């Protein structure tokens, strides 16, 4: 097999680019524990509203013993419920969300609060908001004719 010397140099460059990129992601995954939402937890979408974690009274913000917050939300055509969430800045927040109908996605722009919400599964996202102010949860997966109207409010308030 014939390999040109110039080609060989380029192959080293390609190898280096790949190693640097994969290395930095591996480093972030291991040392900063940065992983995409992947909890593999199932739930029956047909009976969510009747009993269990996602009944109406359980939705919204709950304070945990260690000072962190858990936010339970339902993504359903065509909003996120409850439609207004208020959390303090610089606090660990765990979102737990699921859908009683079809596939949705949720994203708070400029943050890593992002996950798909798939009926039959519970999505869990761990994050902290570093900027105060009002922003939105936007549905970012096509979910039907009202998809454009699917959004709700997030308020990040001063601590304490």
């Amino acid at each position, binding site marked *: 097999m014939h390999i040109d010397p110039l*080609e060989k140099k380029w192959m080293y460059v390609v190898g280096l680019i790949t190693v640097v990129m*994969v290395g930095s992601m591996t480093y972030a995954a291991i040392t900063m524990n940065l992983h995409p939402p*992947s909890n*593999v937890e199932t739930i029956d979408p047909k009976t969510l509203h009747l009993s269990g974690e996602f009944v109406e009274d359980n939705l919204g913000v709950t304070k945990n013993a260690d000072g962190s917050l858990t936010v339970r939300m339902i993504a359903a055509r065509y909003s996120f419920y409850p439609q207004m969430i208020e959390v303090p800045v610089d606090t660990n927040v765990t979102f737990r969300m699921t859908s009683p109908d079809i596939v949705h996605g949720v994203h708070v*722009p400029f943050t*890593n609060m992002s996950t798909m*919400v798939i009926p039959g599964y519970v999505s869990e996202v761990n994050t902290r908001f570093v900027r105060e102010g009002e*922003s939105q949860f936007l549905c970012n997966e096509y979910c039907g004719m009202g998809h*454009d109207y699917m959004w709700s409010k997030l308020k990040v308030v001063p601590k304490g």
Partner: protein
Amino acid sequence: MYDKAKSVALANMWVAFASFFVAIILGLYQVMNRSGLFPEIESHQLYFASVSTHGVLMGFVLTTFFVMGFGYYTATTTLKRPLWNKGLAWIAFLVALGGTVMAAVPLLTGKASVLYTFYPPLQADPVFYIGATLLVVGSWLWCLEMIMSVVTWKRDNPGKVVPLAMYGTTANAIMWLWTSAGVGIEMLFQLIPWSLGLMDTVDPGLARTLFSWTLHAIVYFWLFPAYIAMYTILPKVAGGRVFSDEMGRVAFIMLLVISVPIGFHHLYMDPQQAAGFKFLHMLGTFAVAIPTLLTGFTVLASLEGAGRLRGGKGLFGWIGALDWKEPIVVAGMLALFMLIAGGFGGMINASYQMNTLVHNTQWVTGHFHLIFAGTTVIMYLAVAYHLWPKLTGRRLASRGMAVLQLWLWTIGMLVLTLPWHVLGILGQPRRISSTPYDSPLVEQWGPHEAAMVVGGAILLFSALLFVLNLLLSHVSKKMDHVDDDEWAVAVYQPLSVPKPMNGFALWNSIIAVWMVIAYGYPVLQFLILDTHGSLAWGY
């Protein structure tokens, strides 16, 4: 003289480009609707029916028929003999065309507004799923035709090197069989029986996992013919040689082996798969960038060689020395430019962590339009200009118009996709038909929304010039006797290559093992987990 299967190649090409033209018109309507600048045309029903049709026509119809048509031309002219079974090629064409027509009816009547990614538990008319499946079945017959053509050729030519273009085409056929199995299983075991009412519920977690199996490598199924043209037509037309035949084979093999078992980068944000498997697929995703980086190098080096042979001097002098009046040379340079720009965006999407910030935003739409509609489709257009005289026996109506068209295509694509990248960073979701959010963000989006309408209009005009050129050539009386079906030769044309670089047995076994590792447990887990299916929903 052998039968070059010109009519079947041409029939496939015409279906491809007719679908392309319809889809472009829909594309312009979509950017207009979405921009909010034309309130009188706004309609959610029409918009989502249009997006679904645009996606199916561009992603499934244009690509599949182009790949098939180009494959027949490549097989006959590189192997210098007729197809293994020409009747099968016509059957493949008719099955795929029948499937396309079947799928088009529910799409155009708003009975399949589920987008080309299907999204169960949204449910479309069963005719849509069956039609789409038939299109894939047609493409499987094409795969068989390609594989058998090369197998019989090798039997009759022991020890000879399979020409690079045909080696790549066969790699694509084999890759597509592996790739399309995922969506095939989803259709046959989930969507079709469920839409016919034979099953009450569907598990969207499993459906998404199976679709991800197809979703990445399908992009390489589309890209393969563009790369084949870059390696084996472009250098010859530019007046040079392929920098390295072997490196082309290595790139094709890597694309074949690596692109199937890495689909989870489309599921990074999905809750039904574990982080470990996502990480594993991320490693493969970065490995599949390698053949593209090698291709970029080899193609540029081949063009540099051509430019220098034409008298280009200095570090960049060869660029000016290229024949900028030759459509495929222009397209090749523009395609590489868009590939480099789009490649950077792709690295971000592929990132295990950074993807979070852009997932399902308009950034993603910008990215794949730059790579697919930019790099890939511009090569389809240029290949059409190159093949038309050979397939129709008539001279191309206007080479000047062809070159202008390719430039307009690139400009339009940049005017369309750069604003989309910005919109994505500014948080705009993809797949929306309007922006009714009560948020200050919407005001920041405004100017970029206006720009995308301009981009869409330039692209429609460019597509019009393209189709017009093909039509005028096809009906023209000016005969052309181009029978030089010659393919580029390499600087060092190999007289023999190691066995694995002339066949696929080894690579198939590697893919089989890798697929078991990458998709075995992630699919089987749905039998182990206590899953709950979803009922059907309209939209």
